[in-house]
């Protein structure tokens, strides 16, 4: 038997397509999108409401997150504990979440319990108890969790980055509110939030799973068809500006063995015609293990376990962020390396890098959407950001067309390596001087709760 000395050939895959949606509308206004995914015996579903976080009153930020917590603490005829038992007997999970572009009630359940689990989801949305004792306990836990989260450097880096990038907009501040705004929220605020904003006419139910033995659309209509509540009209979305000024924010983290870093600036939205070209450029620069950034910081210098860059979007807004944690004594050198790599990438993305990025990002689609949960998660994100549900296939087709020239053009148009926001969470006593000497931008010090 001979030993092969070079990689065997790859057999190209047929172009994969996103599962087809079966779309309908319940008479009460709920739009239903059902995706049959063979072999996915755990169904994922999300009831998405068109409620951006920016509608929260400024002095009671966190009311959406607190409403989300309280919705699943007892509903219909069941107390909180009876409700939890009923879900658990189904083998189901039910959670609600408030995020910048929407409010979602998310269910995952074995398909064999789908009907019963949908009834529980409907109870939570239509007939939540919002009990006084449960509200007080959830509020206390929420405040404690805000406090706990600030002991984690990655969380603090993220909060500081948002605060520095997004000016005075809602996105600059923590999604779950801050202690001062959560403290003053009362049960009546949660009841009002649910009543004002959770309503069938702004809702979309997205469900995916192996539906070969169940009529999911009928089940959804049975569970939610009787809901006729009318709340406030959907709010207008306010455009957000992203900082384009070089700045360095230093958060003191005494004795940190590593510094946690974020380097970010404006990106573009998924609706932008250059989205696919920028996506490919980002993949090459920092979006995969063999990227320029990870190769230098991890595989050459060994100063980190991993470094990557990502394009993050919400409705009307996009940012590009490099994130990593590096050995403390290599902090200033590493942020300088990152900015240098971003600078040198302009105009230098090669045909090879771009071809690899196009292949990798398109051929990984079948894998990325293997789970029902991933299918629902993507559709939820697209709808919340105002994009059509069939965007995945459109996006893949456009990705396949990206050339090196297009990637370089998009990168040059969007990425401004000299106007970035740099957040460093590390030992300030050691970092103040080297970060100032670097001379990238003014160094401002912040404390973890300072957002």
């Amino acid at each position, binding site marked *: *038997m001979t*030993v*092969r*000395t070079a*990689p*065997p*050939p*790859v*057999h190209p*895959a*047929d172009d*994969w397509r996103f599962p087809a949606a079966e779309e309908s509308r319940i008479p009460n206004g709920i739009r239903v999108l059902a995706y049959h995914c*063979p*072999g996915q015996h*755990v169904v994922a579903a999300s009831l998405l409401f068109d409620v951006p976080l920016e509608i929260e009153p400024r002095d009671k930020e966190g009311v959406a997150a607190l409403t989300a917590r309280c919705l699943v603490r007892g509903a219909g005829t069941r107390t909180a*504990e009876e409700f*939890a*038992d009923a879900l*658990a*007997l189904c*083998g*189901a999970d039910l959670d609600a979440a408030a995020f910048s572009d929407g409010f979602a009630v998310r269910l995952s359940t*074995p398909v064999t319990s789908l009907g019963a689990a949908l009834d529980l989801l409907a109870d939570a949305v239509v007939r939540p108890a919002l009990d006084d004792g449960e509200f007080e*306990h959830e509020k*206390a836990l929420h405040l*404690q969790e805000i*406090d*706990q989260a600030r*002991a*984690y450097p990655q969380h603090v880096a993220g909060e500081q980055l948002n605060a520095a990038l997004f000016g005075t907009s809602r996105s600059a501040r923590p999604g779950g509110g801050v202690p001062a705004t959560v403290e003053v929220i009362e049960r009546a605020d949660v009841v009002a939030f649910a009543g004002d904003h959770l309503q069938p006419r702004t809702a979309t139910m997205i469900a995916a799973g192996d539906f070969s033995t169940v009529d999911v659309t009928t089940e959804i209509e049975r569970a939610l068809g009787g809901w006729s509540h009318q709340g406030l009209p959907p709010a207008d979305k306010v455009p957000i500006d992203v900082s384009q000024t070089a700045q360095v924010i230093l958060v003191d983290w*005494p004795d*940190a*063995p*590593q510094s946690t870093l974020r380097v970010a600036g404006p990106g573009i939205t998924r609706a932008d015609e250059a989205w696919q070209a920028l996506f490919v450029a980002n993949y090459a620069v920092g979006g*995969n*293990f*063999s990227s320029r950034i990870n*190769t230098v910081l*991890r*595989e*050459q210098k*060994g*100063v*980190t*376990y991993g470094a990557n860059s990502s394009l993050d979007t919400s409705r009307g807004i996009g940012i590009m962020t490099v994130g990593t*944690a*590096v*050995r403390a004594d290599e902090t200033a050198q590493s942020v300088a390396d990152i900015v240098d790599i971003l600078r040198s990438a302009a105009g230098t993305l090669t045909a090879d890098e771009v071809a*690899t990025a196009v*292949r*990798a*990002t*398109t*051929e*990984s*689609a*079948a*894998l990325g959407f*293997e*789970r029902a949960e991933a299918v629902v998660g993507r559709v939820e994100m697209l709808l919340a950001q105002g994009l059509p549900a069939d965007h995945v296939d459109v996006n893949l087709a456009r990705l396949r067309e990206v050339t090196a020239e297009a990637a370089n053009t998009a990168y040059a148009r969007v990425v401004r390596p000299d106007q970035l926001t740099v957040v460093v969470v590390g030992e300030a006593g050691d970092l103040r001087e080297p970060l100032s000497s670097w001379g990238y931008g003014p160094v401002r010090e912040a404390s973890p709760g300072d957002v």
Partner: protein
Amino acid sequence: DNGLRVVVSPTPGLGVVAVNLWYDVGSRHESPHRQGFAHLFEHLMFQGSRHVKSGDHFALLQGHGAALNATTSFDRTNYFESMPAGVLDVALWLEADRMAYLDDALTQENFDNQVDVVAQERSQRMDNVPYGTVFEKALPLVFDADHPYGHLPIGNMSHLGEATLDEVSAFHATFYMPNNAVLSIVGDVSEEEAFGKADEYFGHIPAGAAPDRKLPAPLEPVTGARRLDVLEDVPSPAIWFAYRLPADTATGRELSAVRLATSIIGEGETSRLHRRLVRRDQIAMSAGLGLNPLIAGNSLGVGSVRAVPSQDLDEVAATFGAVVAEFADEGPSELELNVARASAERDWLDEMGTAAGRADALSSCALLFDDPDLLNERLHVLRSVTADEVRAAAQLWLCAGGNAQVRVLPSKTDDVEALG
């Protein structure tokens, strides 16, 4: 003929295929002076082999849309990739090349680099994370420091700093051979094709002298006070509880009974610990109990409570103990048992939801117990365990015996009196 066990599970039309290799080597096989070596070695498996340049392993696979990684645990090391079906040959070729010919590509530079990377991995996961090193501190308390499970796979960075390149070659020669591994191929490939490819890419690798599997005798549950108190810069006091549990076995009946017990006592919002400590007494933000199935004599149980700020930990520990004792005394209600079974079945369905999950589970059953069909069998066992068995298991393993405790007290508040 070289002793490589190959497991194939076709899913026609999926478009995706998963490759998963389990090697029968983990942190329990390490020399006491080289804690963390199995995991460092795993990193070096990505640095190239005779026909693969450094960096090419990731580039070739990710560049064709694959997702890949490897993990090192107490009992085993697994290497895995999921990809479009047409990339299967590349994955098998890469895995075979590093199984057979890692030595040719080892360099001091790559070795030194990965020692540095592992140190940063440890910092990121543990040293720079609140409570990040508590689990590590619990292990030598519940087992002894020289027990195979007395240290974490991430290991000791000063041990790794003293390690040499020759030790990497020796480790490969000792543990990395076809007859010390299981290969699973799951997804969009026919049975015949998958076995054919396994033979094509791995068939030329000679069998080696596979190490005998030496398992230590089971230890009785912990007796006496095993407790460590530490002051750290954390926002809230917390306790970890570690238990010696029965080892995992082929049918795993006793461990299944313990699993149902820990699930009822400590898994999720329906659990007794959550309802007592978080909801009723409101002395904790979270409370749970889970288990880590292991084969060398004992499995490991781990409970943890994140107390509310300023909470006295003696009260937390006493309440935790009372919840466990009450369960061991009265056993599960029918509702609790049904909830625990539903939860176990749900976990199983989640694991089976991807080709990668199925491949990993098949490798596990085949490597640890030489029987991939256990994948289905073990769910039947879980369904058939009775309330009496659950109560007896809790009595013996969670109650009659004790546990080891690590208590973490905030160093920067006035909570120090809570040291108790």
